[in-house]
């Protein structure tokens, strides 16, 4: 037992956490990220790599279903931590670490859990009928709709094969449907972008919010738990900058943005100012970063008008990054009250913006915009 105990203790030092943010619970998520790094843990990007599933906030019915499925995809040893407020993050992570050490528990869990996924016989795969774009389904093969694909060969293991659709050059290419979000690293909380892919190009996309938030009726997390309320604009912006830098792959700069965010959040103004200055220098100096963000979702005046976007979105992802860092500097420096922002980007326009882009550019494009579902929506212009 001693050896396996030692191994477990060693393993727990490198724990990876899959963080799920229920829209509105940004403060809990940031606290989780802060605390797991302090323990030497790291965030996981997919359930395959996760030991702990940290659910920040109380998910609504739709997100709950997704979280349950993610939980089923975790290899184990696995621990689920439901964290409802920033104050309980520390104790929840402590408890998770303790449970991770309990090898007999995980052996039992591994034996008793479902060993194979549950694939509904004739489910509407993805659970969203609106996804079956008419123009994608004109293939000569009879797939009989997603309601009843009876053909054995068409659906090995209960999942249909990919079907062809015309690409932009008129060639027939297989179409894959890949939903982006809501649980994806560096992705706006709650946003779901259902993409149709040919190769790695998004040929069609639909956006929605998980659990229908932002609809008129507030049925989801708002009722289910205490939402943290609006976030300070500078914190949100830092968070967005961190996401964009992390997706671009500049890890040191992303870490710097994360530290600036956490310093702003806990009100440590000097540390925040230092980190922001360093961030600003790094971002400006890196010509490689500029070359990788140049031209990503370039919006000129006409483009802004066509999509009804605010003026601060002008330019490409790199321009937006620089102007965002500039605003953070102004806000963190506290020199002058910054003028109110002229609104964010409504998430409904995202599909129009990203259709035709390659997957990597889609991620950079989304991360470069101030999307409206973000908690900052209420905080805009707080001074």
């Amino acid at each position, binding site marked *: 037992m001693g050896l396996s105990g030692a191994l477990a203790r060693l393993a727990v030092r490198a724990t990876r956490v899959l963080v799920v943010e229920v829209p509105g619970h940004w403060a809990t998520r940031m606290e989780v990220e802060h605390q797991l790094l302090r323990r030497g843990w790291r965030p996981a990007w997919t359930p395959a790599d996760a030991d702990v599933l940290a659910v920040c906030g109380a998910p609504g019915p739709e997100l709950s279903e997704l979280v*349950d499925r993610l939980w089923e995809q975790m290899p184990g040893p696995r621990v689920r931590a439901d964290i409802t407020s920033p104050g309980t993050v520390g104790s929840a992570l402590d408890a998770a670490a303790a449970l991770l050490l309990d090898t007999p528990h995980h052996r039992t869990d591994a034996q008793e859990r479902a060993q*194979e996924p549950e694939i509904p016989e004739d489910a509407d795969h993805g659970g969203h009928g609106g996804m079956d774009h008419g123009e994608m389904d004109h293939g000569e093969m009879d797939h009989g709709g997603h309601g009843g694909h009876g053909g054995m060969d068409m659906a090995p293991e209960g999942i249909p*094969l990919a079907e062809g659709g015309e690409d932009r050059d008129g060639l027939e290419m297989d179409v894959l449907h890949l939903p982006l979000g809501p649980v994806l690293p560096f992705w706006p909380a709650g946003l779901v972008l259902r993409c149709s892919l040919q190769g790695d190009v998004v040929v069609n996309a639909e956006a929605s919010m998980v659990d229908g938030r932002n609809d008129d009726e507030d049925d989801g997390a708002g009722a289910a738990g205490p939402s943290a309320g609006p976030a300070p604009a500078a914190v949100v912006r830092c968070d967005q900058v961190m996401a964009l830098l992390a997706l671009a792959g500049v890890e040191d700069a992303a870490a710097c943005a994360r530290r600036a965010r956490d310093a702003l959040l806990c009100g440590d103004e000097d540390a925040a100012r230092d980190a922001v200055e360093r961030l600003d220098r790094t971002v400006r100096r890196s010509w490689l970063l500029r070359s990788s963000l140049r031209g990503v979702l370039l919006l000129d005046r006409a483009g802004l008008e066509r999509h009804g976007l605010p003026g601060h979105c002008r330019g490409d992802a790199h321009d937006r990054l620089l102007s965002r860092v500039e605003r953070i500097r102004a806000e963190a420096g506290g020199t002058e009250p910054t003028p109110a922002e002229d609104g964010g980007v409504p998430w409904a326009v995202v599909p129009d913006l990203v259709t035709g882009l390659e997957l990597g550019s889609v991620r950079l494009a989304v991360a470069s915009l101030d999307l409206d579902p973000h908690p900052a929506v209420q905080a805009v212009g707080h001074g």
Partner: protein
Amino acid sequence: MYSGIVAMALVALSVVVLLYALHRAAVITAEPLTVLPAQSGWMPQEHALSRFHARWYLASIVFLAFDVEMLFMYPWAVVVIEKGISAVVEMFLFLGALLVAVAWAWREGAFRWA
């Protein structure tokens, strides 16, 4: 001459076997788990194994053309000192012609596919 390589391959394979054996001893359950592919928790709508639209196929054709040339380049590298300037002229005229073709392919947009 190749015994060293064979020995190295054996070492490498035994490292793999050792790791898998260690894993078997240390893991909570040796039996692999079968799961759905990660799609943020959504059910997959179809199998991912499909005809992937590799939009850089033009570049791959140019690559093949150029790659075959390496067959000549390696033996040539060994004899260039012996053969003197004529070998250099011949090889780089050939490479020059290939590079012109690459430049043409580039102008035609073979390396731009975003």
